[in-house]
């Protein structure tokens, strides 16, 4: 596995806060869960309507998804299995070369 399988269970989730209250809640939970922000580049940019993509570990994803469902914040799982996506990025030829 690429990168020693370190991305197994990781997900990339898209969040779109519908209000400033939701944005504040997202900022707080993102900080707590130490998400990797894919876009925007800084959590300070997140406000109402901001398309926010975060990468979370397996454990963090359970907590985050539960939080989003509880607070009814709109979300979509962009990448369900990040390890698979990392491996699919490269062709078989490139993977062989990397190994």
């Amino acid at each position: 596995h690429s990168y020693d399988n370190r991305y197994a269970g990781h997900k990339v989730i898209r969040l779109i806060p519908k209000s400033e209250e939701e944005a504040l809640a997202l900022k707080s939970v993102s900080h707590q869960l130490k998400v990797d922000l894919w876009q925007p580049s800084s959590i300070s940019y997140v406000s109402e309507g901001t398309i926010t993509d975060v990468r979370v570990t397996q454990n963090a994803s359970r907590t985050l998804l539960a939080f989003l469902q509880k607070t009814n914040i709109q979300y979509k799982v962009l990448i369900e299995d990040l390890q698979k996506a990392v491996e699919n990025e490269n062709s078989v030829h490139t993977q062989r070369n990397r190994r």
Partner: protein
Amino acid sequence: SLSEYNYEVYHSLEDIQSWMHYLNQTQPSLVQVFSIGRSFEGRPLLIIQLGRKSQVYKRAVWIDCGIHAREWIGPAFCQWFVKEAILTYKTDPAMRKMLNHLYFYIMPVLNVDGYHFSWTHDRFWRKTRSRNSKFRCRGVDANRNWKVKWCDEGASADPCDDTYCGPFPESEPEVKAVANFLRKHRKRIRAYLSFHAYAQMLLYPYSYKHATIPNFSCVEFAAHKAVKALRSVHGIRYRHGPASQTLYVSSGNSMDWAYKNGIPYSFAFELRDTGYFGFLLPEMLIKPTCTETMLAVKNITMHLLKNCP
């Protein structure tokens, strides 16, 4: 040969630098590769001067890729651009005109340490790999480290943040080396193009404030034509406009710095996609992404040569 190198896969830093040295040896009439310094970890910072060699004064266009380590489609495009330019020099009148009248200074990987780290350890690393004994976290955001409203809105003073601006402007040797080169050649360099991912946007200054640049009409028209040309290839839509409005306000970035330092036409591309793959754009999408972007870059360059003061 030039055509045997695979431009439709992502390459390690070592491969990219070997390819550059190979070009230097085999394409002497159009290519000269040189180093502008060393990275924090001691790697050479290599630039390709691309264009017909001439004793006559020539204006130039600067292109850099790989400021952010995990945005691999950037370096892939820089390599594609060089390949296309060389291969079509004799057959494409527009390319021939560009390479005869201009030099392109292309830096396929600006953040060499970060790119290598993302290749070998952490695919989603963004920053440089500099270390400061005072802090437990490594790296500086190489696109927040330029001296233009440094460490203001959109940048962080926390070394552990991904948008860390650094201990002072141009603290990163990579940023310092490029800044020095651009300062030295700023009278010749007419355009600055920087390649990032992902958002599908073509941006121009300002990023650090909400204001209109003095040469707005020429820049906006160039951007408008470029995204129209880009869309004509595969139907992919790019938004365009001032970075502060189209994306968000961020201070200390290279595009604003280049503009402030006298390079009149400064752009940043955010390449494919818009989030389906994000940073993990599959290799099979390298060709369509680079083909459409190539047309946009040619369009901008030709427009600036012909229509802008």
